[in-house]
Structures are given as C-alpha cells and as structure tokens.
C-alpha cells in the first residue's frame, strides 16, 4: 500500500489508518477518476485487514480538503451514457466506502465542495475545523449539472429534505457553524485538534455511541418544519411543489439542472437509495452534455482563467496599493470605498465637497459592515476595526501617500479635468488616477494630465458591492504597470476585471446601447413596457431593459447615448422616446419618476401608464416575445463582434465575461460570442440580414461576421 500517486496511507499504533489525499502538482485537491481507481483496492484491503480498526480521510494540502470534482473530466465525455457511467462508477466506490465494516471519518479543513463533500457524506462521521477557510457545499448547480456522486441521496438523508434542496439548488457554501447547526458535521474544532477529534470520532463510532444532534436544532423553526413536513409523504409533496415553483420562477425554465435535482431527491426519498442513485446517474449524464452545462462550464473556466490574467502582454509589474483615495461620496464612490475597505482591506480616504456627502459614504459602508456584524459573521470589534480603514474629508488632507485615486464625481468633463489637476497637485508622483466615468472617453480626461500614462478608466457597475465586473480602460498612453495594478486591485476587491481599450462606451455600455435602444424603438411603436421586460427576463436577463433604464437612471442613459451616436452614427441613434422622457423630468427610480411607479405599495412593479401619453403611443402593438428577445440579443452580440474586431476587447473570453458579469447576459448562453458560436455564425448572419430587411441597417451584420461566415470560423475554438 505504499506506491500511491494521489494519497499516502499510514497505519497508526492505535489501529486507526489515515489516508492523506495529496494530488501531485496541484495547489488543491480535486476528485479525479484515477484517484478513485487507486483508492478502491485500498478500501478492499482495509476491509479484510483485522489490525485496522477504523479509517480517517484527510487532505495533505494546506487549507483545502477537496475543492470538488475535476471539471475537465466533464469536457472529456461525449455522450450522456458515458457521463452516466462516470457517475455510476463513482457511486460504486462511495457505496463501498459507506458500507465498509469499519468507521470512516472525514477530517476536513478548508474547502470541501462538490465531489469532496460527497466523499465526506459517504463516511460515517465528519469533523471539521473552525477556520474561515472551511466551507462545505454542493455547488454543481452553478455549472448546470448536479451532484453526481450520491449527493442528491445522502445529503437529504443526513440533514433533511428542505435544507438539502436549499443547498443543492442554490449551490451555497456553509460556514463551519452553519454546517454543525444543520447536522451536516459532527464536530467543529480548532485546526490543531482536528486529528484528535477525528480519532475520538472513530473510537466513539466503534463503541456504537450515538452521534449528538445539537439540542437546539429540534426547537428551531427548521426543526419543527422538518418534523411536520418531512416525516410524511404529504408534507414532502408540499416541499417538492414549493421547490419546483421557486425554481420555475427563478430560472424561467432556462436551466434544466434544478428540476433534475428535485426529481432525484423526490424519487430517492420515495423509492429508496438504489433507485435514487440510478436516477441521479441518469440525470447527471443528461446534464453534463447539455448545452447549458457546457456554456456554464465555459464561463467557469473563463473566470478561473481571468483570475490568473494580469491584464497586460508585457512583464510590467503591479505596484503595491496600500491606500486608495476616492473622490465623490455618491452612490458609486461609496460602493467603491466599501469594496476597497471591506474586501480589498485597503486604507481608504474619501473626499466629497460636502461633509454630508462624506457622512453618506461612511453610512453606506457601515450599513453593509453592520449587517455582517448583526448576523454574527464578524464581531463588533472587527466591524469597527474595518470601518476605521475608511476616513473622510472635504479637502485633500490625507491624500499625500495615496497610491491610487478613483474619482466618481459628476460626469462633467470640466470637473474631471479639475480632479486630474488637483490630484496631480496634492498626491505623489506615483499616484494613479483612475476614473469611474461611464461615458467620457479616458483619452479626453487624460488631456488635462501632466502624467497621462497614469490615467486609466476603472468602470464599476452599480451597486458596486454586488456587480462582479470591473472594466479597466486603457488609453494608448496608459502605462502597463498602471493597468496591471488596477487588475490586481480589482481582484482584491472581489471583482472580475477585463481590460478594454478606450473608445466610446468602452465595451459594456457600447454593447448595451443597441439592445436598450431596440427596446425604446419597440416601445415607440407601441409595444407595452411589461411585454418588453418580460420577454427579456424570459430570455434569461436578470431584469428587462426598461427596468434597467429606471434603475440606472434615464438621465444617465441619455448622457451616454449621444456620445455613442457621434462615434458610431445611425446604428446607435437614440430613440426619440428617451429624449421625451428626459424632458418630462423622468430620471427613473432615483426621482421616483420613470417607466414604473415608485409611489405606493408596488414600488417599481406597476407600469406608470402616464408614460404612454408622454410618448404619444397606445401600448397595443403585438410583437412576439421571441422576436423581441432575438432582436435584442442579436444586436448586442453583433456589437460585441465589432468590439472584438476593433480590438476594444482583448479576447472573446473577455467579451463573454464582460457581458455576463456587467449586464447579466444570460449565462446559459455562455456570453454573446459563445451564443453566436452555438447558433452558428451563418445563422447569425442570416437572422441579422432578415431583420435588416425589415427594420433597417442597424441590423447590418458586422464585417467580421461576414468574413467568419466565409471562412467557416468560430469565436471560440
């Protein structure tokens, strides 16, 4: 039992054997088929070796147990049958482990996700460390698949149906305390005591001691719910019905995995483990080869890839950022300050012209930090310590040693130029000037700079703490060290950055504009607002284009629009509808006058019918929801193709991630460029030309698409 590649095996004097998983050449463990094949005979031997009294499975990696199944494995299977086979052979191994005649305890420190948790579930006991690195969950649904290693069967049997569905349908990860409370693990201990606790767990199991469920769990709301609903078939039906409804509401039927997860649990609980595992393997097989899973997995790989990308092609190095200055305590400035303090752990000095502005920014961060404090995720002293990293001022005191200034003042070029000059006067020579403008070209802003190489765009999306994307905009003068420093900062802020070249609308707003404009055109033609929004939500966007306008602000959108029209001409012409609304002082949610009503009970849910009279239309035109969404999607994708062609984005990968993380482009399409790949470039050109004939030249296919069609190329290989 010595020459193992993926783990070490050790037998101790007390008769307890320890398997320490340690994948060679990897920073963390993933579950591979080869590993299972290597482990199987060892388990067989343990079964017959009477000197072994029990087994502990631990990780040989610092800070992670098993981070999940090896996802590259999914890409290698061609058919649903192959994938089903993969799942079934996993089942056989986990069953053997579960049925071993000796206690097996998983000693978990660090990430224990997906296949890793499924392995732990097949053990007879689980002890974990109290480290913040320790997280347990089954995130497969986020990749469009399901836990195919028995997770859909063992988890509900251990923690109950409702909590297990919650975990598997959201893919959320539990902290140690939560895991213990749910009964997912037997004990939480400090890392130094992990092996001691695991040994004790093995010995207790050998003596047949019953595992302790926390007493409190019986009296909690969840405990009572479990008693009432899960112990009888009728109650279980209520749970499954409810889960199906929630899933349908959230996915609009665009994602097949959640439904299949529910099916596995339902069948398994009704017909038993064997039937449950069989259905799990079959469903797993179907999902792995589905279009949706392939797209979601591509997004996962693109994101992982971006995490390693420094955003530049040279070997310039990022400088260390210790202190960030933020100009403007409005919504954006406040959000940027928050992620810089609480996520990136930087010192932040925020400047506003008014002390009320500073106070507002402090309140913004404190509200978010206090929320974590109230949920006991952090202690009051940690909350206040974090908060002390954020200070405010109305002058430039405290700006001398700032490494980067991010300005988020009004979109006014004179004001921006003034900011550039003031920062150059009050900060150091190395201070980077980053602007969060969403409309003004960075090159124009940099005109006022003595050191234009240190001027860069850092475009966050609102609300900053939630939106995962940051566009980093480089002019032809921006230095590489500046760009890569911004990339590093954005990563520490918990963001996924893409580096784009300066140009009107940069990338995200540029591809968003024709999509929003199309909604405006349809609206002017008399298509009802809710119809437009519903069509796009059904197509997979988080909100419809009209709701988005209200959220972002109609005034903001009309500010960007003319810049795009100037740069790109007729195809970006702003619909007259938006101008009319601006004249009617409709700014959207912020002044409670928009397309939707913001007074009364249904805030932002009911259309403000008076909009139609402002526009001079009656909302009675019928256009098929499919056509509405196709027109929007195609225009967005077409513009994304142009951006790639013009070198605005560095790669198709960046184009896809930018659209998904910045706009909410349906992830199951894998991004606009992958969407065109999956439709086929030929079809895309055909459909665009079809609409071009009907509605005009804004649908004219991008040059690059025509060339690609000729050559039979795709965006992604």
């Amino acid at each position, binding site marked *: 039992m010595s020459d193992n590649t993926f783990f070490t095996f050790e037998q101790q004097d007390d008769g307890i054997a320890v398997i320490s998983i340690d994948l060679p050449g990897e920073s963390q463990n993933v579950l591979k088929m080869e590993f299972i094949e290597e482990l199987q005979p060892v388990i067989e031997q343990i079964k017959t070796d009477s000197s072994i009294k029990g087994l502990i499975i631990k990780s040989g990696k610092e800070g992670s147990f098993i981070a999940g199944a090896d996802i590259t494995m999914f890409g290698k299977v061609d058919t649903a049958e192959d994938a089903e086979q993969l799942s079934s052979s996993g089942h056989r191994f986990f069953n053997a482990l579960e049925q071993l005649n000796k206690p097996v305890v998983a000693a978990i420190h660090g990430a224990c996700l997906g296949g890793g948790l499924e392995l732990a579930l097949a053990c007879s006991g689980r002890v974990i460390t109290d480290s913040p690195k320790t997280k347990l969950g089954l995130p497969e649904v986020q990749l469009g698949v399901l836990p195919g290693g028995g997770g859909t069967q063992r988890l509900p049997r251990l923690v109950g149906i409702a909590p297990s569905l919650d975990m598997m349908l959201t893919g959320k990860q539990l902290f140690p305390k939560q895991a213990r409370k749910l009964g997912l693990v037997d004990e939480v201990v400090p890392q130094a005591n992990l092996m001691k606790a695991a040994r004790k767990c093995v010995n207790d199991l050998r003596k047949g001691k019953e595992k302790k469920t926390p007493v409190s769990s019986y009296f909690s709301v969840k405990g009572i719910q479990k008693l009432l609903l899960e112990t009888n078939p009728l109650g279980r039906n209520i749970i499954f019905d409810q889960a199906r409804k929630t899933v349908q509401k959230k996915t609009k039927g665009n994602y097949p995995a959640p439904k299949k997860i529910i099916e596995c649990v339902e069948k398994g609980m009704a017909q038993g483990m064997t039937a449950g595992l069989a259905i799990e393997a079959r469903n797993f097989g179907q999902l792995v080869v589905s279009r949706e899973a392939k797209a979601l997995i591509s997004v996962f790989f693109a994101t992982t890839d971006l995490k390693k990308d420094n955003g530049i092609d040279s070997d310039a190095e990022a400088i260390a950022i210790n202190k960030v200055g933020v100009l403007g305590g409005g919504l954006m400035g406040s959000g940027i300050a928050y992620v810089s303090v609480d996520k990136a752990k930087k010192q932040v000095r925020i400047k506003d012209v008014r002390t009320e502005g*500073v*106070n507002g920014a402090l309140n913004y961060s404190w509200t978010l930090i206090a929320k974590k404090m109230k949920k006991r995720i952090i202690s009051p002293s940690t909350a206040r310590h974090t908060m*002390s990293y954020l200070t405010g001022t109305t002058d430039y005191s405290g700006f001398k040693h700032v490494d980067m200034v991010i300005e988020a003042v009004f979109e006014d070029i004179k004001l921006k130029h003034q900011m550039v000059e003031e920062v150059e006067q009050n900060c150091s020579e190395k201070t980077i000037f980053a602007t969060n403008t969403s409309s003004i070209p960075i090159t124009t802003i940099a005109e006022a700079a003595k050191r234009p190489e240190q001027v860069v765009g850092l475009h966050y999306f609102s609300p900053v703490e939630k939106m995962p994307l940051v566009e980093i905009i480089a002019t032809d003068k921006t230095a590489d060290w500046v760009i890569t420093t911004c990339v590093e900062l954005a990563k520490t802020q918990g963001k996924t950055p893409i580096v784009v070249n300066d140009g009107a609308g940069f990338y995200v707003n540029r591809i968003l504009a024709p999509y929003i404009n199309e909604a405006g055109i349809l609206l002017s033609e008399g298509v009802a607002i809710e119809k437009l929004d519903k069509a796009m939500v059904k197509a997979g966007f988080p909100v419809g284009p009209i709701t988005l306008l209200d959220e972002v602000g109609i005034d903001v959108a009309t500010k960007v629009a003319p810049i795009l029209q100037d740069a790109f001409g007729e195809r970006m012409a702003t619909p007259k509808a938006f101008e009319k609304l601006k004249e009617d002082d409709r700014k959207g949610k912020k002044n409670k006058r928009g397309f939707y009503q913001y007074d009364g009970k249904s805030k932002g849910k009911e259309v403000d019918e008076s909009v139609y009279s402002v526009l001079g239309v009656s909302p009675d035109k019928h256009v098929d929801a499919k056509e509405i969404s196709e027109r929007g999607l195609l225009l967005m994708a077409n513009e994304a193709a142009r951006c790639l062609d013009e070198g605005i984005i560095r790669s198709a990968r960046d184009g896809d991630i930018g659209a998904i993380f910045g706009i909410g482009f349906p992830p199951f399409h894998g991004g606009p460029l992958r969407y065109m790949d999956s439709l086929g470039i030929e079809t895309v050109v055909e459909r665009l030309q079809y609409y071009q004939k009907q509605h005009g030249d804004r649908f004219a296919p991008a040059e690059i698409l025509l060339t690609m069609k000729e050559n039979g190329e795709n965006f992604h290989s």
Partner: protein
Amino acid sequence: MSENTTKKTTRSKKEDRVAIVSGLRTPFAKQATHFRGINAIELGKMVVNELMQKTELEPKLIERVVFGQVVVLPEAPNIAREIVLGTPMDVHTDAFSVSRACATSFQSVACLAESIMVGDVSVGIAGGADSSSVVPIGVSKKLSLALVDLQKARTMGQKLSILKKLRFKDLLPVPPAIKEYSTGLTMGQNAEQMARDRGITRQEQDELAHRSHTLAAQAWEEGKLDGEVMTAYAEPYTKDPLHQDNIVRFDSTLDGYAKLRPAFDKKYGTLTAANSTPLSDGAAAVVLMKESQAKALGYEPLGYIKSYAFAAIEADHDMLMGPSYATPKALKKAKLKLSDLDLIDMHEAFAAQTISNIQAFGSTKFAKEHLGQRTKIGEIDMDKFNVLGGSLAYGHPFAATGARMITQTLNELKRRGGGLGLTTACAAGGLGAAMILEVE
C-alpha cells in the same frame, strides 16, 4: 517678544527639543448629545485616526502611543493599546495608558516627551479621551460580593444562603461615583468651598463664564479652531456630522447666567451649571517628535515643550489650587518669569476655581505661605489670559482637555508670530499640572 525670550529660544535651539508636530481634537459635545453611545475608546480612535491622516503620518513611523481616560471602561483599561489595535496603526506600536484626573493628557504628553528626551522613541502620539455618555454602570457592593461568593459556592444550599442575604435594593444598578474616593467630597463641593472662603461672588463667576463663552464663540466665528478641530462622523453615520463644540454659547448674554439656580449648595451657593464646566464627550491628541526627526521627515513643528511640572496639594480643602503650585515650578525649570509669557491658558473647571487661582498668582501672601517664596508668581494680564475662552465654554472631557489646551495655545502663539505660552490645570485629588510651550 522680549529680548530675553529671543535669547532663550536661540540657546535652546542647539538641543534636540521635543517638538509638537500637530494636534487635533474632536468637537466637544454635551453629555448624551452627538456622541451618545460612543465610548471613550471610539472617540480616541476617531481623533488619532484623523490626526494621522491630517499629518500625513505613516503608521509605521509611530513608535508609541500614550493615552488616558478618566472614566475608565472596565472592559478595556488600556485605551492606548485599544486605539492602536482598533485603527490602521501598526501592531508593533507600543502603547500604555495613564491617569491624572483632569490633567490626564498633560501626563500623557509628559510621559511621551520623557520617552523622547531619553532617546527611547522619536515619534509618538499622546492624548486623552472621555465620554460622560458611556459610563460603567456597576452593581451594588453587596451584589458584587454575592456574585463572587456564588462562583466559589459548590452546593445548591450554599448558593441559596448567599442569595437569601440579598435585598431588592441591592439589585439596583449603581451609577459611577461622583465623590472623591479619599475625601468623600464632590468636585462641586470643593469649588463651592473655595468660592465661599474667598468671598467670590456669583456675579464675578458669571462674568468669567460669559467671557469664556464670548471668546470661544468669537474664536469659532473667526475660523481660528477650524484647523485643530476635526469634523466628527459618528456611528451609525445617520446624524449630521458635528463641526463645532455644541456647548459654546454663540449668543451669550450676562443676564442669561443670572437666571440659574445654584447647583451644589442650593441655599447659599454661588456655583451654577453655567459657571461650572459641563459634563461632555470628546478626545484630543498631539503628535510629538524629536526635533531632529521632525525636521528629517520634513515637518514644520507647531512648537516645542519648554518645561513642565506637576504639584500635589491637600485634597479636602482648596483642592483645585493646583495651577498656583505647578506654575512656579514650571517657570523655575524654564528659568522664566510669568511676565515673560505671551499667553496663559488655565483650565476652567469652575469659574470659582479659576478666579481663586488668578488671585493666588497675584498674591504675595500666597507665595510666602504656600510656595515658600518671597515674591508672588505674578499678576495675570487678562489680555493674555484664556484669550480664546476656556473649559467653561468648550466643555471638559476630562482626559482630552490638556491636549486641547496645548494645541490651542500653540496655534494662537503661531498666529501671534511666536512666543511663550503657559498651559495649566487643576485636577481631582489635589493635583496640578503646568506646561510651558514655545513657538518660534
């Protein structure tokens, strides 16, 4: 500036003096107003954090923090260390806390100055903070004893017999004591005694209070305090930020003071809430550096510490005369006469205490009987005295007052083109502090 002072300044230049590089305080707020629910440690963190920002001081350069609070929070007696740990300061910054009642931040500044003089450290922060809004409310002595006994008790019977002895009134919470531990007298009673024995009238006291408020209001209106008082943003950041002390009366009239009833001796007393300094919340701090270090780092110091002295006197009679005992000692150390000074800033705990000390400064009798010297300390020129008002107007967060006075005096000296200034305070327990500052 007299010739004499100029000479002295030039001479001391050769030594490596203790420089006060900058100073800052929060606005002082009346009890349970703007800083309601914010404890002294949070106030201390607030001021030190902002002081580092305004001074553009890298946390790593700060070697030591000396801080104080008078009303000590039992959960965190070492406020100085809590400030280091609770802000972006470097964990390797050493920190300890001191207490000298109302003269606490004179003590923290003196301790840090000494560390600099002996070459232990070259950059540090000293100051103090107090909250009268967050105070430790304790349990009765009987309950406290019973709780300790309960921990030791083993059987149910023993526990019951301990609990049986408690009466309902023992369970009521006890606010912090206002009486002096050793004398059993309150500060108000002490000041009342001083006014009574010296025949200081209500009118005189009210006039001093009115003067203090008028001068303080003027200082604010002329923008003299803007640079040394930070804007306070207080958790949860929903209240409007505080820019100014909310105790200073901007519309002070002498008639207003006459309306109040005596606060301590209801029958014959002359002390009122208006001619006594109110309970208040706030914090103040200064950055001290070795002169050579300050210059090496490119700072232009506000001024320098010329000398300081402390004095201790009787605590049950004339307890608040500290300034009259500490000042001559500090003058002697600096080889100066009172007339050499350009400004005198005396802490105004009570108008009565301030007037008593002004009298003593100008009294040969006092000098002979109490100081063992033939000549009086010196007649105080009221044009140099508390020129921006004093604690009666600003309020008195105990441990913050000394640092407030030091910074305020330095800035005023600077505005006047330099010179020498005295800052002095009385403190509970019969203590006194005096510090002479010089600005070039």
